């Protein structure tokens, strides 16, 4: 095993090579594309961008009272301060090398970094399975109202009735849109929601003395599904897909038995297809005494058009950062409430909000009589409140009618891409009917030596974020395109034009695709080197 490099090895200084336009610059900057050093290279431990009214040093443990300031701040009677600090002799005396910058330098540093990012605000972000939709700024404004953003999670309930009201109102929407009995709001992301659902199922099985050990997961599932089942203590077995890209019902039925605790199904699935036989799957699973977990990552395709509860689902997480527009933030934070069936509700985690005649109560550990069968707490506090306010603002903006239009337009956009590209890109399931909100292509038809990766990187040069690559695993060289409902026809037409052009180059074996991207802030990065000699922290 290679330990990460702690020797201070650094790659060579960039030579600012000529760009493809033949222009040489001495700074390495290229017009508006600016190189930005690390904060460790431009900051120092003597600079700060924050002013304090009083002491800049801490009194030592031996003698000398804490400096009570020069009168500009608190005047609580300083004569009662005992001598010395009260840190128990644990003062941090050594410098720990944390660089600081003044405010203008800080603003500039992060602004320059931000400009090296692609984002939804810059253009279409058709990353399949991720639902990169517009993040309305109203949501940001609402989440920052002091009555939400400046609340401590342990304030007395009488002082947070409006916050509990937000949780209750959002919960009502989620339950109504899914046709389920209730919802656990506290999970912190999609994968955490999966864990919540599986633990709820396990608690329900244990309550009836049933020690089932196996969870079945389709081959096309997100990686989080098998990882979650394993994390929750289950053995994982794959179930195959049909040639049509859907769960093989016969194979599933054959495998069901008294050892199977649950089946985890993604619907619509990761091939972008609706599981037509979902109800039959659920019935078979229930008949075998097991539960149906649905991965709700793709709920955006069906919101307002079919309710998972009607399909026999027992538990499903909802990624608020996908279907309900909370920002992805460069990889989180997410939020993953889990809707639950009647059979599972008694086992839902703590805490939860209960509505009474007098207002809202928060049911926690100290109220265990109110939730005797709950499987317990899975994180501190009460969930991703900052995401709840955003999601509720989004849902209220759309209403029941708008949400139905959301799924309609998302599916329309995906089918438009599918049909306009399937003559130049292989669509493995294109013949089986319409897709849902994602169009899936494979690399079949590409010339020898040209890969999905090359096509994706060429899209970068055309100014687009690529689609999801090499997922789902059941399709060779998969390209999963999810445009969302937030793209105009003009944007789609331009994206399609670029995608078709690159696809034709890939079929023709255009070698220059291996060089892409050439116009991004960086060329292809050496991931092998990064893993072989890990440099995971600044060592300068």
């Amino acid at each position, binding site marked *: 095993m290679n330990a*990460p490099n702690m020797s201070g090895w650094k790659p060579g200084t960039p030579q600012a090579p000529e760009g493809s336009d033949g222009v040489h610059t001495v700074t390495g900057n290229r017009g508006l594309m600016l190189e930005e050093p690390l904060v460790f290279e431009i900051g120092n431990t003597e600079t700060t961008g924050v002013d304090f009214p009083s002491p800049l040093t*801490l009194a030592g443990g031996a003698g000398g009272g804490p400096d009570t300031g020069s009168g500009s701040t608190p005047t609580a009677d300083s004569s009662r301060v005992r001598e010395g600090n009260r840190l128990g002799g644990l003062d941090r005396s050594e410098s720990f090398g944390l660089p*600081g910058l003044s405010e203008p330098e800080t603003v500039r540093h992060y602004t320059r970094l931000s400009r090296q990012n*692609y984002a939804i605000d810059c253009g279409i972000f058709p990353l399949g399975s991720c639902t990169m939709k517009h993040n309305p700024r109203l949501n940001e404004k609402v989440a920052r109202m002091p009555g939400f953003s400046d609340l401590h999670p342990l304030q007395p309930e009488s002082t947070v009735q409006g916050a509990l009201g937000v949780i209750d109102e959002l919960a009502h929407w989620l339950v109504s849109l899914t046709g389920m009995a209730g919802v656990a709001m506290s999970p912190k992301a999609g994968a955490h929601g999966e864990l919540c659902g599986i633990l709820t199922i396990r608690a329900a099985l244990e309550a009836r003395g049933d020690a089932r050990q196996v969870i079945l997961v389709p081959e096309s599932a997100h990686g989080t599904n098998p990882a979650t089942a394993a994390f929750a203590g289950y053995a994982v077995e794959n179930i195959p897909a049909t040639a049509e890209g859907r769960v093989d019902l016969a194979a599933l039925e054959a495998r069901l038995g008294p050892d199977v605790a649950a089946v985890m199904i993604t619907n619509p699935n990761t091939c972008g297809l609706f599981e037509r036989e979902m109800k039959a799957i659920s019935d078979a699973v229930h008949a075998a005494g097991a539960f149906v977990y649905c991965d709700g990552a793709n709920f955006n395709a069906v919101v*307002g058009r079919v309710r998972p509860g009607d399909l026999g689902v027992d538990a499903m997480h909802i990624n608020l950062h996908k279907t309900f527009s909370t920002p992805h933030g460069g990889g989180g934070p997410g939020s993953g409430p889990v809707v639950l069936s009647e059979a599972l509700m008694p086992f839902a985690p703590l805490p939860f909000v209960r509505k009474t005649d007098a207002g809202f109560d928060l049911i926690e550990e100290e109220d265990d009589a109110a939730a005797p069968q709950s499987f317990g707490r899975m994180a501190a506090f009460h969930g991703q409140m900052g995401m709840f306010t955003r999601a509720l*603002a989004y849902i209220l903006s759309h209403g029941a009618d708008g949400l139905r239009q959301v799924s309609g337009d998302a599916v329309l956009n995906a089918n438009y891409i599918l049909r306009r590209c399937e003559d130049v890109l292989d669509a493995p399931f294109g013949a089986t009917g319409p897709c849902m909100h994602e169009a899936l292509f494979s690399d079949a038809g590409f010339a020898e030596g040209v890969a999905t990766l090359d096509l994706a990187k060429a899209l970068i040069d055309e100014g687009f974020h690529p689609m999801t690559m090499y997922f789902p695993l059941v399709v060779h060289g998969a390209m999963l395109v999810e445009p969302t409902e937030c793209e105009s026809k003009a944007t789609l037409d331009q994206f399609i034009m670029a995608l078709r052009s690159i696809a034709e180059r890939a079929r023709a074996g255009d070698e220059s695709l291996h060089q892409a991207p050439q116009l991004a802030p960086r060329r292809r990065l050496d991931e092998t080197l990064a893993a072989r000699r890990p440099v995971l*922290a600044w060592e300068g």
Partner: protein
Amino acid sequence: MRYLPLTDTDRAAMLDVIGAPSIDALFADVPADLYLDKPIEGLPLHASEMAVERHMRALSKQNLAAADAPFFLGAGAYRHHVPASVDHLIQRGEFLTAYTPYQPEIAQGTLQMLFEFQSQVARLFGCAVANASMYDGSTACWEAITMAGRVTKRRKAILSCGLHPHYVSTAQTMARFEGHGIDYALPTLTAETDFAALADKVDGETGCVVVQYPDILGRIGDMTALADACHAAGALLVAVVTEPVALGALKSPGEMGADIVVGEGQALGVGLQFGGPYLGLFAVRDPRHVRQMPGRLCGETVDAEGKRGFVLTLSTREQHIRREKATSNICTNAGLCALAFSVHMTLLGEKGLRALAAENHRLACLAADRLAQVPGVTALNEAFFNEFTLVVPCDARQLVRDMAGKGVLGGVSLGKFYPDGQGRENSLVVAVTETVTAEDIECLAATLQECLA
């Protein structure tokens, strides 16, 4: 509908290309008897931006914001002043609306930020390597316990009585399902931490000992001897930091020998937000443990032209590659909260963080002395940072409600966590940050006195 760009003309033209008569026809795979052909009844229809804002504002006004009251709550979530530029920068669309940096050529902004974040956290904690963040402190704590299990091949964890009770509950829930043993006892109201007693408990079965620093009662202790005891028995020491500002004044856990240091990063840049989203911090002292870490890691490399760049790396630990054999099922991190933390840390620098910590400690000392003068109230702690425990002559749960009735958010009652009637409910944990004024301290003292009279 203001978020939907397609016009009916566009829709008709696109359906024509697709060869479908209607959008409904695209849902032919949904069983007809379950398909909803009109909006779900009983739910409101779409609303204007102004109407939504009005509705949300009305809800927000039913809450008492921390800024509108003398405010002394901590116990795992801390109210600090966040410089205005932090919130401005995290709202740059290029950060806010980007995704996980799967295409590193066009995600260097997020990746370099994460590399800087990892470096800042590692230095703050006295560790070699930090990851790109977890959901929050409580889940990071459980991940540390499971990681210690992988490293030591032992499945027993001993938890300090001073560990945040929500973190304890989280660990107990997960341990029950995953077959870990948890050794934990409720805290006794003493001035000292239980570190010495924990050292005596470590045995050959112990995978890790978990301590919090400062702990739930605000106590701080030297964990060097405990680390030695753990290492002598082949166990790891996990240190949990719920108030990272403390490490501007206090020796880091890494310096004292903690092997895994995890924490809640909310105090810097993120804000209170009624409990989430927060920011899980996760770091290891020994770089050889990196491959057992959960979560995303950002690493340095070069591009095809030799220019320095950053990528997500060592992903063979993660669920999207390893599936059921991954080190964790975690997928997302808390990217935007990590950015807020990192920007705040950059603005502070070591000089500013030390000053901030000093200011917190100075005010906390003032408050502890003043509040201990209230008749019937005694301060438990001898050593503390910005939070301490007051022993009061009544159930502090009612006391907290009474104070809230008078417009004072006066602390967290331990009875909320330990409602067992063993005396712990007669104690109040009080946090004092730089946001507290002398007038606030006087107001709390007067209100306490009034409510206890």
